[in-house]
Structure formats: structure tokens, C-alpha cells
């Protein structure tokens, strides 16, 4: 009886041990599986990211290719792909390829240093010529009977010119403009003048609009003088804090009937009240001449996230050569050649130890500024 009881306990113990070992093995298996799954889970996005990075980083993103000049050069606006390491000009290369009308294949190439460019590589920005005077747009309001400044946003101006300053003394006749001569209307018209004012130093400036009838003045986007409504020739002042340099200026004016006048003056603690002179007023006029190197700061190391502009030059591009190694005349793949012969060009941009980007293009017009890509 005792012996039997002892055997039962041994069996229970053995069973428990087997269960324990089984549970342990099962736990190990589950653990191993989980670790493996976690590894796979971690490695999959990592490997996808690596693949994606390899596909995208260290490549050149082309924003625009345009005709730099009709003879032989192309302008490129580009940036390094996100994730790229900074590159110097000798690590980046361009290749320009085309066929001539006889079917001969030509290639030109160079790096991203100034030696292979028409002008030094530089950061792209919207740079315009600061032409003296304000852009002045006159609107015919005949028959409108305005009693306050009319909305001009979606109207077409009847006359566009450039005015040296805003200095129209009150007159019952017609205004005499700086460049257009007499206005065709003495009554019922509007003026919208816009551009920039060069502020000599940081500080508080007082602006005065003397007008008949209503007018408004914004400087640096701030409404400084609100002199709207029907009234005689009377001044109104406003103050604004400005930083040194170019600040935007916008004026709107309307004349209903009777005499008309508009004068813009300013003063600061550094100078007495005066009519804002022509020397302090400018407006935008086309993009800066790309030939003027003083306008650009040469870049030798290119960072991702910054947009650059280059002008690839067939003449300087390590000498153009065809497949036979012959030195060829430089403008073979130039805009005029491609345009006149209806040929396609192809550009490839290579990042040393990175990837390549290529695009093909046609030249619809060979004139400077024509966008190709």
C-alpha cells in the first residue's frame, strides 16, 4: 500500500518535470520566434530605408533647365537630394549629349566648378534689377462717382508707367507725369503706385500723404496713413518703425471731381520733412543680368536643402568630344542647333560615389530664359 502510494507520487513528480521541461522548451521556441520576428520587423523598414536612401540620396534633383544663351549654354536650377552628404564641385558632374543632323553622336561634360560654367555656381534666389522710381498704374474711373478708394485688384490699368516720385501738387487741370506727359483725365481716376523705399537706418519714420481726394499708404505691409474719402487737398501723417534697407511701399489714390493732388513726404530724426526723393524709390524690373558676377556669390561646397543655379558651358566642359574622341565645335548641342534642327538633347547629372539623374529635352525656342524642363 505504501509502495503504491510512493510510486504515484514519483509518477506525479516525473509528470510535473516533463511538463516543466516541455513548458521551458515551448517558451524557448516562442521566445526565439518572437526575437526573430522582432528582428525581421526592425530590419525590414531599415532595409527599405537603406534601399530608398540609396535610391534618393546623393542624387541631383533638377528643378528647371532653361536656355542660358542661344549659342551654347544652359541654365540649371537644382538641389542635392535630401539625405545627401555635402559635395564639392569636383564630386558633381554634368554630361550634355545630342545627335547632330547627320546622326553623329556628341557629348560634352564637366564638373560643377567655375571652370565648367559660364559664371560661378551660386545659390538661386529671385534677384531683380532695382530700377529707380515707382511703378505707377493709372485707372480710368469715368462715370463711377467714387466717394472712397475703389477696389483695383482685378482691374486692368489704363496706363502703366514709372514715376520718379509722388509729387502732384493740387490742380484743377490734369496731372503732368514724369514720363507719360499729361494724364488724359482731370477727374475720376485712380492711381496705384508700388515698389520699394530705401530706408537709410533703423528707426521711426513719419510719412505724410497730402491728397485730394482719398489716399492710403502702406510701408513694409503696414497701413501707415489712411486718408480715404472725399476731401480737399490736406495732409495726414503716420509713423512706422522700419529697418534699414529695402522696404515695400504701396500707395492707392483716387480723384472724384474738382481739384486733384497727391504728395508723399517723409521725415526722421536724421532729416527734415521732404518729398520722398527718386533716389530712395525703386521697383522690380526683370531678373538680374546673369553675366554680372558681382550679383552672385560663388559656391564651392553644395549642401542638401539649398537650391543652386549653374550655367553649364560646352566650351569649358573638358572639351566636347564624340565617341571617336574627336574634339568638336562647342555649340553642337547648343539651343540654336537643337531648335533649328528639331533635335533632342539629353542631360545627365552624376554625383561621384552616388547616383545619376538624367533627362531629355527639346528646345521650342532658343531665346534666353526659355524653359526646357
Amino acid at each position: 500500500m505504501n509502495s503504491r502510494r510512493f510510486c504515484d507520487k514519483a509518477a506525479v513528480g516525473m509528470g510535473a518535470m516533463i511538463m516543466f521541461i516541455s513548458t521551458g522548451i515551448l517558451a524557448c521556441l516562442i521566445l526565439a520566434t518572437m526575437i526573430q520576428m522582432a528582428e525581421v520587423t526592425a530590419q525590414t523598414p531599415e532595409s527599405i530605408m537603406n534601399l530608398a536612401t540609396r535610391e534618393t540620396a546623393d542624387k541631383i534633383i533638377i528643378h528647371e533647365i532653361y536656355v542660358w544663351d542661344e549659342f551654347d549654354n544652359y541654365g540649371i536650377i537644382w538641389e542635392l537630394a535630401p539625405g545627401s552628404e555635402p559635395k564639392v564641385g569636383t564630386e558633381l558632374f554634368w554630361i550634355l549629349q545630342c545627335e547632330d543632323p547627320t546622326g553623329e553622336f556628341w557629348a560634352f561634360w564637366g564638373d560643377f566648378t567655375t571652370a565648367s560654367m559660364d559664371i560661378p555656381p551660386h545659390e538661386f534666389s529671385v534677384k531683380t534689377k532695382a530700377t529707380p522710381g515707382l511703378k505707377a498704374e493709372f485707372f480710368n474711373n469715368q462715370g463711377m462717382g467714387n466717394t472712397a478708394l475703389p477696389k483695383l485688384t482685378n482691374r486692368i490699368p489704363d496706363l502703366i508707367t514709372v514715376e520718379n516720385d509722388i509729387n502732384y501738387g493740387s490742380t484743377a487741370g490734369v496731372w503732368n507725369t514724369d514720363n507719360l506727359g499729361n494724364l488724359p483725365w482731370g477727374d475720376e481716376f485712380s492711381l496705384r503706385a508700388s515698389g520699394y523705399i530705401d530706408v537709410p537706418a533703423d528707426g521711426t519714420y513719419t510719412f505724410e500723404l497730402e491728397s485730394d481726394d482719398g489716399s492710403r499708404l502702406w510701408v513694409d505691409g503696414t497701413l501707415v496713413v489712411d486718408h480715404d474719402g472725399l476731401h480737399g487737398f490736406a495732409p495726414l501723417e503716420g509713423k512706422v518703425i522700419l529697418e534699414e534697407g529695402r522696404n515695400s511701399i504701396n500707395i492707392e489714390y483716387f480723384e472724384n471731381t474738382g481739384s486733384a493732388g497727391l504728395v508723399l513726404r517723409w521725415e526722421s530724426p536724421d532729416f527734415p520733412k521732404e518729398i520722398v526723393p527718386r533716389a530712395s524709390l525703386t521697383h522690380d524690373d526683370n531678373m538680374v543680368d546673369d553675366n554680372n558676377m558681382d550679383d552672385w556669390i560663388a559656391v564651392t561646397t553644395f549642401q542638401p536643402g539649398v537650391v543652386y543655379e549653374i550655367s553649364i558651358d560646352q566650351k569649358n566642359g573638358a572639351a566636347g568630344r564624340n565617341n571617336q574622341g574627336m574634339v568638336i565645335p562647342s555649340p553642337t548641342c547648343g539651343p540654336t542647333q537643337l531648335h533649328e534642327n528639331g533635335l533632342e538633347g539629353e542631360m545627365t547629372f552624376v554625383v561621384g560615389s552616388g547616383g545619376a539623374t538624367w533627362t531629355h529635352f527639346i528646345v521650342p525656342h532658343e531665346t534666353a530664359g526659355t524653359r526646357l524642363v
Partner: protein
Amino acid sequence: MRLRRVPDDDASAGISSMIIFIALVLVSAVVAIVLITFGQELFQNSSSDAEDTSNVMYGKIIISNAVITAIDLDANENPTYANIQITLELSPGAPTVADEDIKWSVLCQNENQPNRDRWSNDGNLEAATTANGDGGDVGAVDEIEFGVVYMLTISLHHTTDNNNDGILDDGGCPPNNLETHTLVFVIGNSGSYTSWDLRYDEQLEEGEILI
């Protein structure tokens, strides 16, 4: 009297249970550590990926519409002046920007070759309004922020006086039939650039959608 030590089965079972419990806790801890480590790696990868993406997205302008709201034609039906109303917003992730710090430029070919200046009309977003406005109010908004749709009316016209008669009749980028001009937005001086094609067809008229 000699005492006989009798095995206590209940105690053995308790000890075994404790051993199994401790073993399970240890295994759980190891599994947790492994999972946390991989989780960290995943987060780090995502973070670096997000930073790269942020570089791409930062400061981009999304244009949802560009329509001609007014156009003036000369005797030969060639446009000389056009107002284009643009509906735009900042890309996700872009920080708030002062309206005057966003510049636009429409670029087109210089018809007076070989002078290499690119012809353009230019401006900033000072006149931008929210979608309720017409895109032509200098005082409407001071900042451009993500999540808000803005309107901006730009004027495209000649910018230079070619024959000194006081009339601007050259340069600039008024629409030209069958040409494609480039609309560029730049935030700050450089670094964030968005460009769009303004495609002009043969007979331009008000209401025509360009993008």
C-alpha cells in the same frame, strides 16, 4: 527515537511553481528588453526619415488653382496685361512665414536675345488674403501659416520702356499665346523653391485655368 524525515510534496510543488514563475519573469524581461531595443531603433529610423522628409517639405508652396481674372489684349490679340488669381497654401510641416518673406516671380524668355537677362514679373505675398478675399489687400494678413488657404492676385505685364515714351512696353512676362512660363515661389533668399508651369493656350480669356 529516531525521527524520520518525510518529504513534503506540497512544499516541493510550491518551490517548483516559484522556479517556473521566476523563469517566466526572466524570460519576459529578456523579451521586453529585446522588443524595447528594436522599438527604439524603429523610432530612431523614423525620426531620421522624418528629418529628411522635413527638408524636402519645408517651405514649399502648394498651388491648387491659378486662373486668369482679367486680361488685356492689343490690336493683334496678343496679351499685354493679365491678372492671375492664385489659390495657395504652405506645405505641411512648414513654419509660419511673414508674408513679405515669400517672393514670387514669373520667369519667361527674353525676346531681345542675346541680352541674357531673364525677363520676369516679381512680387511678394503682402497682398495675399485668406480664401474669403480676392488676393489683393496689402493689410489683410501679415503671416502665412500652414493649414490656411490663401488667395494672391498677381499682375503680369511689361516692365521696361523700350522707346522712352513713358509706356512700359517691353520686358516682363505678360502671357504669350502657346508659351509656358515659370511661376516660382522662394521663401527667404534661397533654399526653398517651388516652381509651377503657367501654360498658355492659343486664345487666352478670363476664367482660364493655367495650372
